[in-house]
């Protein structure tokens, strides 16, 4: 417990940028089996996204799309 975090950390970090698409990040997390991705701009830290954030946003996106399609088909508003 008195060891430094460098004894257990991951130095090979895959970062994303604010412009990276949600689908791409979801795919990267699945392929690399990671749960967090720091967000950087020109090497500077700008945020972090977890797999939970990505899944939540993806579900919201899909639900909005489904509602729009249902409205289109049934003609309800």
């Amino acid at each position, binding site marked *: *417990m*008195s*060891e*430094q*975090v*460098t*004894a*257990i*950390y*991951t*130095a090979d*970090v895959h*970062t*994303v*940028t*604010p*412009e*990276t*698409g*949600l689908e791409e*990040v979801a795919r990267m997390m699945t392929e690399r089996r990671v*749960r*967090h991705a*720091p*967000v*950087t701009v020109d*090497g*500077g*830290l*700008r*945020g*972090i*996204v*977890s797999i939970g*954030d*990505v899944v939540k*946003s*993806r579900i919201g*996106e899909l639900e909005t799309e489904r509602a729009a399609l249902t409205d289109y088909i049934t003609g309800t508003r």
Partner: protein
Amino acid sequence: MRISDVLRGKGAEVVTVTPDTTVRSLLTVLAEHRIGAVVVSRDGTSVDGIVSERISSGHWPCEAPR
């Protein structure tokens, strides 16, 4: 949707620790913020690594009983 949309919803705050932080302090930081991972950064801006609540058994910091 892009990552910028996700960050707009949750904020851009990132908890970082310096490389010389002890594992004990790390656990306190994770518990205080109720988060699963922090970025390891020398200056709070660079990304030098990432350390999470889950670590593989090969990296377990405690010595295995013999």
